[in-house]
């Protein structure tokens, strides 16, 4: 299923979209899940893909999540409050997904230093 189709599905029939994600999880399709989490503008879908990667777990899924977290860990540079909150929310969700994929507790803080340290630790694991 193409990304655009999945985005339409998540608007029109969220349960079917969830089922599609679940299918990708069941087949451990890390590449597809990572692409969805990275590229979609549908935040609900992105969140599901991140959770899906966490469900898959293991080094490959963790690596994909860490890469996404690294991309999301840049400072917030442009936009309004909504975009800033989006930025923070995506970062936080990825931190928790990485922690779940690794089966470790998420870091207590969310400062740039906290997240940087968590990324490094995740890469080494």
């Amino acid at each position: 299923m193409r990304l655009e189709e999945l985005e339409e599905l998540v608007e029109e029939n969220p349960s079917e979209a969830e089922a599609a994600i679940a299918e990708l999880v069941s087949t451990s399709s890390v590449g597809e899940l990572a692409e969805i989490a990275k590229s979609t503008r549908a935040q609900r879908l992105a969140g599901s893909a991140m959770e899906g990667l966490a469900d898959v777990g293991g080094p490959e899924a963790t690596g994909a999540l860490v890469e996404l977290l690294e991309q999301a860990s840049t400072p917030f540079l442009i936009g309004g409050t909504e975009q800033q909150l989006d930025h923070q929310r995506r970062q936080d969700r990825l931190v928790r997904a990485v922690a779940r994929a690794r089966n470790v507790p998420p870091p207590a803080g969310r400062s740039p230093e906290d997240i940087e340290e968590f990324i490094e630790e995740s890469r080494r694991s």
Partner: protein
Amino acid sequence: MRNRLARSYGVDEGWGYPSRRDRRAADLFWASLVGEPAARPQTSFGSALTTGSVAPPSEAALIHTPADEDSGEVIDLPAEALPAGQTASTCDISKTSETLDQFAHNSSTLTAAHPPIIDALADCLLALRADPRPIRNVDIAGFTDPTGTATFNQGLGERRAKAVRDALVKALNTRSAGSAATFNFRLRSAGATQQIPGGNPGNRRVEVSVDIAVSDIVVHASDTDTHEIPSNLGGAGLEHFCCVKNTGDIVLQALIAPSIPGAIGGRLTWGATGTAVTSPAVGTDGRTAKLSSAAAGKFPIQLNWDGAVVRRAVVWVIWSRIDVTCTRPPTTPVVAFAGLSITAGIDHTFTVDPPAIVTDADRPALDGPNTAAVPGAALTHVISGNPLAGGAVKKWDASRQIRMKVLNPRLYPVAQLPPVAGHLWNGQPAATTVPENYPATDGQGNDDTHHCDETNNPYEDCDRVTALDNPRMSMANATGANGDTFETRFQFREFLRVNLGTKWYRASDFSLWRFHARFLRAGGAWTNNGSAFARDNAGF
């Protein structure tokens, strides 16, 4: 069309009554109560149907005078002189009652003149049955002249009513098998207790009528901006009609069953508290009424039938006051990157007017999730690329419109500008671009993809909805050379919107503000070059 009309008009009695034998074939039901003489005495049914409340016709309007009674002459009414809206048919459903008179003395046998009336009655009843709110009850009352004892006359009236009922049942079933069973025939006798002018033959009569019931108030089809919103109390609450300010007239319509507009006359009247109500609002249709939407408020309305209140409802004209509660002039926050960020901010509060729409115990159910996608739902945000569809989840929603201008005199390519997912850098590199302008659609918030920075719940927040925004723009020191400038002009219009039925409406004035982020490259880094913040939309 009453192509042959004959009517007497007793001046002393102040009401008219058809008396010609041959009028019956054409003038089947009573004339529409529009134009019927006033002060007609209550007839046997006690039904409002038979009481006119409009002015007597002028002499010129009379079809003929009492002198005509004796002449036996039938007057053909020219088609062009017929009341508007009446059409040529033996079934004139603008009437709600018919009289079969001239029974023989002491007799309940139908006369030779009665079958055509019965046939036409059957046609009309079947036609009325097709109404969305079909009639069920048909009242049939028998009368006698004053001769004889009261007991005898009571029985004779009953027999006459039954004779008409039986003939009507037969006529109905002949036209449509079993159709008579769909009506409830309510028979009664008034004996000789209700005499009418014109002599005994006219009093030896049966009157057949149908009920009119005011069943509902609805928004008239011509008004697409007023919406009936269910009460938060469900069926126990009043009917509520909502619109926002300055959306034209609020046009309402009473639904009567059966829908016989001409039968209303002046008997259906509208009342309103706090504003004027005008009826008719559409043509001469007395079922319609209009109110102005020029001022916000709560306007209780009522429908009266023959002066008695039969329906109450509330019209709400919605707007809100908008206040700026906090402003944050441009500053340069500390951000962990090699460059400069400039930010500014503003907070708004919307106070819903009238407050009663939020606080009344019985109010329109405008709390909870919205029922329509926001305007421009499929469009995306200029910076984030997120769809505008996410801008609202409730029926009240603080929203914002944005327009942006980018001044890039050194023509930096997109790769040297802050990364965005939206269309902000469309057209770059260019000295000047306007990647986003204000939407033409009222109520569309093109800077509103979330509700996380809004409260949107006036029910738990003292009639208020709040919103805040802290736009930020950044430039990386890796871009440009000393002396370069770069500017982004963000201009905004804040507003409250409300979801009524299937539409969204702007429910406040716009609150204008702007943030012009101006950068100057000096000493190897970007500096704040007099960034501007103001509560206007100047200098775009």
